[in-house]
């Protein structure tokens, strides 16, 4: 049973286009993190969202945490080839804040 569903699993678009990646669950999370992983490297944190309805912006990336803290989205405006990578969401729950990971979205931005 996948507690945190990411969609799409794979996305290949042209440079300049916009895209949205979704992270959905039926469970409530205390916080949710988004990571980007490039080939041959470990994941690197992009942002943490904590409050229901919270919106955070990181240059062309906009992250939103659902009001009920069960889902999140990552929107990229005017995608660049440098945005290529595997995007992972991870929700925190439980007293030890154990992270539940999504399966990832592989994003390719073609020049």
């Amino acid at each position, binding site marked *: 049973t996948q507690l945190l569903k990411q969609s799409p699993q794979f996305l290949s678009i042209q440079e300049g286009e916009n895209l949205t990646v979704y992270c959905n669950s039926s469970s409530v999370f*205390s916080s949710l993190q988004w990571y980007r992983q490039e080939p041959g490297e*470990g*994941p690197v*944190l992009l942002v*943490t969202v904590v409050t229901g309805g919270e919106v955070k912006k990181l240059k062309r990336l906009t992250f939103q945490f659902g009001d009920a803290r069960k889902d999140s989205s990552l929107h990229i405006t005017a995608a660049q080839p440098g945005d290529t990578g595997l995007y992972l969401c*991870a929700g*925190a729950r439980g007293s030890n804040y154990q*992270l539940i*990971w999504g399966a*990832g979205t592989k994003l390719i931005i073609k020049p």
Partner: protein
Amino acid sequence: DTAVSQTPKYLVTQMGNDKSIKCEQNLGHDTMYWYKQDSKKFLKIMFSYNNKELIINETVPNRFSPKSPDKAHLNLHINSLELGDSAVYFCASSAPPTGMDTGELFFGEGSRLTVL
């Protein structure tokens, strides 16, 4: 300076062998982790240690044994390697949670294990 370093980066070995992967972090974090990432890129936690004590031990074959000599090191030893153990193994560390914020995980570059 590398924050979380793990060695070796690549490991190719025969079925049935025993191998170890070492991990060190210089961030002063209390908590360290081992994750396994399979060919489909799914990241699955294996173990978590806090101040040298095991706090998370997921359903992992007992052929896998973590060892934390001090809070800056967490090594992973694997006995009797099987084909299905082939994957990329990531070490990570984190600071204690603050409020509702879990705290950022800092990952190493990964150790790609190939079992032939």
